[in-house]
């Protein structure tokens, strides 16, 4: 028996939560093909796009059957989805009627959907975004030149997080937008997702005992995000996420990490998402959203340092 997951018309963070809930419901019985119906999608974000891949992968793993997908009706959405190289990545998750090659259309994306399977992919991603990051961060968002390198470092660390801690494959993509209502400025939105063991699973062996009954997905996120804890007995580990948090802070940006049934965020004054959440629909792995706003005149560049 097939079960349909109806993908909402706006496929962003909230839309992802809806498909997580529906995917959980559709895969409860553990059998039967899942169909993702994206026909009524009118707007999709990078987070929503990779979220759809992640949900499809989870459905595939739970049912043992490649889910189907109904393509969006909106011409704009179809065009965007194609430019973001969704279909070549979807071919490894969904049961697609025809083979989809990479889009040859000119893309305005900072980074199209790219799978993260090994350190080579991370190298490729970092080198691939170099020129585009320079054009977007410096010229469009008005950040100083070093921000291009800082963005590359952040991208590398967030992708490595997938390799080092998820013990599973993941995806990354990034796009620029003009956030008229929320911010009145251009932003870069970066989404990285995997459906691996998640923060709670990754840290459990080393840290769960310390928390006893209070051990949860949120405690694991707090340990990693706020305290720099890692699953390794090594003082050099765990600094990647700390570095990302510091950098997002310098840019007055936003970072939200969702894992298991919880999320944790660095919330700037221009947004009002919760700092932490629990009781979200359970979902494996980790889903990271980073928003870097255009620089305002009052934003400092950070001084040099004395040696």
């Amino acid at each position, binding site marked *: 028996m097939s079960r349909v997951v109806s993908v909402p018309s706006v496929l962003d963070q909230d839309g992802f939560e809806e498909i997580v809930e529906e995917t959980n419901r559709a895969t409860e019985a553990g059998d039967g093909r899942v169909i993702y119906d994206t026909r009524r999608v009118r707007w999709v974000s990078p987070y929503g796009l990779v979220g759809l891949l992640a949900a499809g992968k989870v459905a595939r793993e739970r049912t043992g059957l490649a889910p189907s997908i109904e393509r969006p009706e909106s011409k704009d959405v179809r065009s965007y989805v194609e430019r973001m190289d969704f279909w070549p990545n979807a071919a490894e998750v969904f049961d697609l009627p025809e083979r989809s090659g990479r889009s040859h259309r000119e893309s305005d994306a900072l980074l199209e959907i790219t799978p993260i399977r090994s*350190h080579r992919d*991370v*190298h490729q991603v*970092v*080198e691939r975004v170099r020129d585009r990051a320079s054009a977007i961060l410096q010229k469009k968002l008005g950040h100083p030149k*070093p921000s291009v*390198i*800082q963005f*590359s*470092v952040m991208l*590398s*660390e967030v992708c*490595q997080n997938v*390799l*080092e801690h998820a013990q599973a494959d993941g995806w990354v993509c990034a796009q620029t937008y003009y956030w008229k209502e929320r911010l009145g400025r251009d932003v870069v939105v970066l989404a990285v997702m995997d459906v691996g063991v998640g923060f709670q699973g990754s840290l459990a062996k080393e840290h769960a005992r310390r928390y006893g009954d209070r051990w949860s997905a949120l405690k694991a996120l707090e340990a990693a995000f706020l305290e720099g804890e890692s699953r390794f007995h090594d*003082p*050099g*580990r765990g*600094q*990647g996420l700390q*570095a990302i948090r510091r950098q997002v802070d310098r840019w007055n940006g936003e970072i939200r990490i969702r894992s298991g049934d919880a999320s944790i965020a660095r919330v700037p004054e221009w947004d009002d998402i919760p700092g932490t959440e629990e009781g979200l629909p359970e979902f494996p792995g980790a889903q990271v959203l980073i928003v870097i706003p255009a620089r305002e005149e009052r934003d400092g560049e950070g001084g*040099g*340092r004395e*040696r």
Partner: protein
Amino acid sequence: MSADEARETPRAGGLQPEVSETSLYSYLVTRHTGRAVRMSIREQIVASDGPLVAVLDFRNVAVIDFSCADEVVAKLVDEIRSRDGLEETWFFFRGLEEHHLDPVESALVRRTLAVAGESAGGDPMLVGAVEGDDRAAWRTVQRLGRAGASDVAGEMERAVEEVRGLLDRLTRRRLVMADRRHYVSLRRTLSDTSGGQQPDGREEGGP
């Protein structure tokens, strides 16, 4: 007292250490890459015979991330400093730019390590975990190039015994070299080894 401090103070007197230079890759990203680079440099160092200054050149490094810095910089320094038989190996970082510093310094600080070096512009730098007094003493040795404890104490306007303690600690941490009664900056040693050239290629002294 740390394991590092428990060892004999290395002495550079007449040592004329060998200099091994490694030009690092353009994209130093991922722990995997860092591990490979670290192992390659470690092999070179272990294969050397006698006192050695290992120079890591960052001038071509376009991007270094935190994970890679932990492997290439901090773990390498930590391994070499705690390995028996390599007590006379010093590290020197060359060509450091602002964008290298955050990852390199974070990695060193997390392992309570520090390394002497110089910026891309040729200015001396001390990167990593160093207390304020130690840093001040190190700067004085950089300025003097080669000096006794009393010279450094005079410059710092501090008691000689107190300053000698700071200098001995810097020596044990291999941030300066000891040459009998003198303390020598690594830049000075590199300059002497390369026949009077400063590490960045400039002549020492001058107007």
